């Protein structure tokens, strides 16, 4: 690996010391050309010499999210520069998404095995979305959940014999359409009266006999969401 230049942005001296130690012992190709404890010092260093990689902490001084803004500015001014986030925000998932949107190449959490040589190398080789294990575990967890949800939906469709018209009817009910409005949809060949019957039929399919009394459209739609027939995150009306 070719030698490359690094600036470390870290406000806690003790942590900076540990990070420098990692570079010295595990990544000897990296030349630390400067370290900054706050935003002002960082931009001063950048004006002196532009590095190949910026290892950026998200929280500096009194601000716990200033790193996101710094990342955005770096990406705007130095498009080719690699940015690796090294943060102790091990639980703040929303901040991870923000900083990825701001142009970071990867996020390494200050937990588990901390900063690994392989991760830095992947970034230097131009790989995007480099994460260490704790983040990957979370991503995989979310992915599994999504896949399971889709499987549940497929199973529910089969188990409760939901056809495309049932799904469309339920989806539009969930979006607040009246039966008259639904019957006027292009891909809905049923009139309002038929939809009434279909609603009764759906109630019989989705609810056990003991719970069918007094079920209205809202309760029906809620039940459809509970059974994964409808995905509340993807409720979109048909284009007419």
């Amino acid at each position: 690996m070719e030698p490359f230049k690094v600036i470390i942005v870290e406000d806690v001296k003790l942590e900076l010391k540990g990070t420098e130690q990692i570079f010295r012992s595990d990544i000897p190709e990296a030349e630390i050309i400067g370290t900054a404890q706050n935003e002002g010092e960082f931009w001063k260093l950048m004006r002196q010499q532009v590095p190949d990689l910026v290892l950026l902490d998200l929280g500096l001084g009194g601000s716990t999210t200033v790193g996101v803004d710094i990342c955005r500015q770096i990406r705007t001014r130095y498009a080719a520069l690699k940015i690796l986030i090294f943060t102790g925000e091990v639980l703040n998932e929303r901040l991870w998404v923000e900083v990825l949107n701001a142009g970071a190449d990867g996020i390494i959490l200050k937990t588990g095995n901390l900063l690994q040589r392989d991760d830095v190398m992947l970034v230097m080789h131009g790989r995007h979305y480099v994460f260490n294990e704790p983040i990957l575990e979370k991503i995989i967890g979310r992915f599994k959940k999504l896949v399971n949800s889709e499987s549940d939906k497929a199973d529910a469709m089969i188990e409760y014999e939901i056809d495309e018209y049932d799904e469309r009817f339920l989806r539009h009910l969930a979006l607040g359409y009246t039966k008259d409005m639904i019957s006027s949809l292009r891909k809905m060949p049923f009139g309002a009266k038929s939809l009434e019957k279909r609603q009764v039929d759906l109630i019989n399919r989705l609810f056990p006999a003991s719970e069918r009394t007094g079920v209205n459209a809202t309760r029906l739609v809620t039940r459809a969401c509970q059974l994964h027939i409808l995905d509340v995150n993807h409720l979109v009306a048909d284009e007419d």
Partner: protein
Amino acid sequence: MKHAGLFIALVIAMQACSPLSDEQRMEIDRCNDRAYHDRYVNIDSTMFYAEKAERLTSRNRYGWHEAQINKAYVAYQQMDFDKAIDLLSQVTHASRNQFHLLSAHVLYMKIAQRVGDGESFFLHRSRALSILERINENHEELTEHYQRMVTYARSELHIVSSTYYYYLGQDSAAIREIDEAFEYARDGRDTAQWLNYNYMVGSGGLVRGSDDEVTLNEYGHLFLTYTMSSGRGYRYFEANALQSLAVLLADPARSSIVARERASSYGFLIAQFAKDAPLDSLCFAMARRSISLFEDYHDLYQTACAYRTLGELYFNRADYLPALDAFMHALSLVENQRQRSRYTVNPWMAGIREKLSMTYSALGNKALSDQNRNIYLDLLDQYRQNYESENRLLELKHEVNSIRLKTVILLVLILLTICLSYAVVRRMNRRSLVRAQRLTDFRDSADFRALTGEVNGIRDRLSEEMEYYRDTLHVSQMHIERYKAANVERRAKVSLVYSIIPYLDRMLAEVRKMLEDSPVEKERLSYVGELADEIMHINDVLTDWIKMTQGQLTLHVTTFQLQEIIDVIALSRATFEQKHLSLRLPSTDVQVKADKALTLFMINTLADNARKFTPAEGCVSIDVDAAEDYVEIGVTDTGVGLSEHDCAVLNDSKVYDASAIGNSDAPKGFGFGIMNCKGIIQKYRKTSQLFSVCQFGVSSRLGEGSRFWFRLPKALPLLWLMIALSCFPAMAETDGNPFEQMYDSLYASNVEGRHSHSLSMGTDFLRCMPVPVDTAYAVLIHNEIAVAALAVGDWDAYRRSNDECVRLHKLFTQDKSIEAYCEKMRTLQESGVQVYVMIILVSLVAIVLFYLLYLRKGLRSDRLYSRLMDILSAHIDNARSHVAQYGDVQPSHLQQAMDGDDFVRVSGECRTAVEACQVDNPVMADAAMQLIAEVEALYGRVLHDAQELISLDTQRYKASFEEDRLYVMNQILDNCLSTIKHETMYYPARAKQLVDGMKREEASQEQLHELLDLLQYYREVYMLLYHQAERQVEQHSFRRQQLAVRQALQTFADELSDTLRRQQKREVSLQVEADESLCVVSDADLFQALLRSLVEDSKRQCDAIHLHAREQGDSVLFTLTIHGVCLSQEETDRMFSPSTSSIQCLIARQIIKEHDSHCRMPGLRLYAETKGEKAFCIHFTLLNAQKIKIPHGTI
């Protein structure tokens, strides 16, 4: 035979109808006089002569009523109050003889006084006084027989009144009455009344002066009573005088004064009762003689009193067993009487019960002593309550006078109304006014005025209610502001806790590296040591911070009915039904002393857990079990249950992995709720000894369900003490009241059986009692001291405290009762006025109807006019009936009224009807239309006020909910942080110790493994506790709104300037510089808290503060320049880093973080820099509201 019977009946009837001769009358009078004379001599003789007089006359004829009064007196003396009242009622119903009625009412008063019926007492007193007023006018013309009756009635009335006031604790009134009695008793015609007067004065409490004077004066009266009564055969007074003399002479101090100053009479008594016996047997002999006389006289009440006196004498001589016998004998007499009659004499029973309590205590039987004391206190309270309405009759009399006055005013008003009507008719005849003008005048009509009056009345009530709602809302908002600031402080602490995690992870990573690389690098090892140091430093900051707030008692302890909490839980019944679970709730009248919001939180949490872990068709039940000093609240379910191991973990472990609780088949909970409940119970226990009964526990069997329970201290067991507290509910709140703290300590000490400690502590407190005295708590403190003194046998201290306790209690409840009654009377008076106003209005309506029906009849325009008038009347009636629906200003009723309101429709119909008349007479129609519009406007105002009230109520409810939410959240966060502090403090220090050990010698693999294990366990425990705290932080307190910068900065500057002026007596220059149009997205409370935090550390040294704000891209940059404080570059750099030791800076950092996460715009700044030699700046940014187009108000 049949004819003979008829003949006898006829003869009797003729006798009954035949007039009585003068001889017969004289004989009847003689019998009645003799019966009266023998009242205090021989009760059997009285009965004999009364019955004889009765036989000589016939029902309701001459002398019969007097005989009934004499018989009633005998029944009264024998405590057969039912019979006495029955006989007297025959007199009061049938007799018109004012002298008989007077005697009957006076006897009624005596009965009422004895049974403690204050209302009846004053009723008959009032009637007796009225009769006396009438008799006064013809006093000189009375026969001697009647003059004797009047003299008796007068003296007896005042003597009974004096007795009544004496028992009520109103000594001055009692003395005034006895002085009045003297005027009538002294004329010498009635020896019994003269003896009665002397006995009353001598029996104690009615003489003023020095101790010696009082003793000699009382002794003189009693001795006179004794000698006179024994000489003339008045056994009743002889026995009474002996009893009182025995009590007086039993006191060694008083006895020696009498022996010294009244040697001859004292010698006479010794010769009579203790001639050859030791001197101390004098009192006993007199008491025994008194018992014997009362028994001969057949006076049950006085016999029991005499036994009680004898018991007291034994008690004072420390002969407790004979004393107990005497008291028990007295009690058995009381119990006999209680079984015979529905009337009980509470003070009579109370006195005996008190003595029994003392005697049992002296005999070492604490349980029976406590039992008798509780009965004693309850009896006192019942007696007191009987007297509560004592002054009502007098007030009623005033009220009657007031009504008379009002009636006169009413008549004048009606007269005026008639005159006015006449004048109006004449005026109408003279002047031909156009009808339109009359229609316009309709707004002066009675209906319209009534409507206006009703509208104003309702609006006044609504306005009052709104003011009250606004006040309570304001209080809630102030609490919210305070709790919010406290919440952000706790969030900052959680952030500080969070800041340790990266260090911990680095330590773990370094140790793992060391295990891989061999040999261990010293530099790496020392780095681990530095990390441990840093963690310890942060722990120290956290510990100092927690310690600083530990002194602030934040629990809101009140006494409340558990049923109130159960009722709130009942509202969530639907959520149980949705899961097909049945929820069983108890009905209870138990009161507990605890924090109401936290108790609700705990029961709710446990019920919610039970709901989650109970399968369908199961049952969740809440039970309340009251023990002697605590109340156990349990939540039982028929759910999945817990294993023995899980139960043991929940019951015994401070820290546990909550997600591991539960079996593998059933869903597992986070279990933080249970941890929080345990934390709250721990907090109670730490707060005061009073809460030492607080406990939390769980019992469960796998597959059979669980029962989670906790215990809270039971509120006071004695009814009357609870009444005293409920008079001042606000005082029950813990706010550093020294009386409450002392009472809590005494109560807890007595409950724990440390009576000597309680006694000395209470006595010390009374010696230097703070002022002003808190009467409610003074009653309670005296009671606790009396209980302690009773238990340790300190009789003097017991009597002092008990007397003071009873005296204060009488004063306390008396004032309250009269005040409440006066308020009620005022309301009644107002209602009376309203009734008369209504009558006047009806008269006016009658005049208007007269005008409509007759004066203009026949004219064409009349029909139209009349129709319009009808429409308007109907419209106003409609408006009134609609307005009346808003009379009940409860928000729920107002909402109901608004939901069913159809006034707009009805008003529309009226408009249509008037428009139809437009063609016939547009001027009149316009006038009517104008009036309709006015009625609509009036109605609209009521509607507007009602809507505002409902809106205020909603706001109030929301604010109260928010207040409780923040309060509970803060309490739980406190518990979490406290647990983190206690449970994790050890590990970094141990890690540091291991590292130091390894630095001294070559680190071995075993040592590294030990360090790794320690750190892994530390992280596990730490994360577990952190997650518990973090779950609370997930609930937000941030209220995003658009904030005008200049105004907010100016508010802060004004408050700071005011604070500095008050606290430091100095002026600091505060300058605000910001554009008027600048707005930021923030929370108003947190913005102020942020500014306060930023200047808190330097406000004492600074000379001037400059607050500046300007736009900077999407943000607004705030700069606080603080002059007069010198900081180095390093200090400003470190100011807001996690390693800072300034708590205020950490709070400021947290507030900026809150803005970051709630405004969805990461990158807000907070930093400091030096400025010249003697100043520094703090910069922070907030989101510019104008750039992101957030609408006004809360988002």
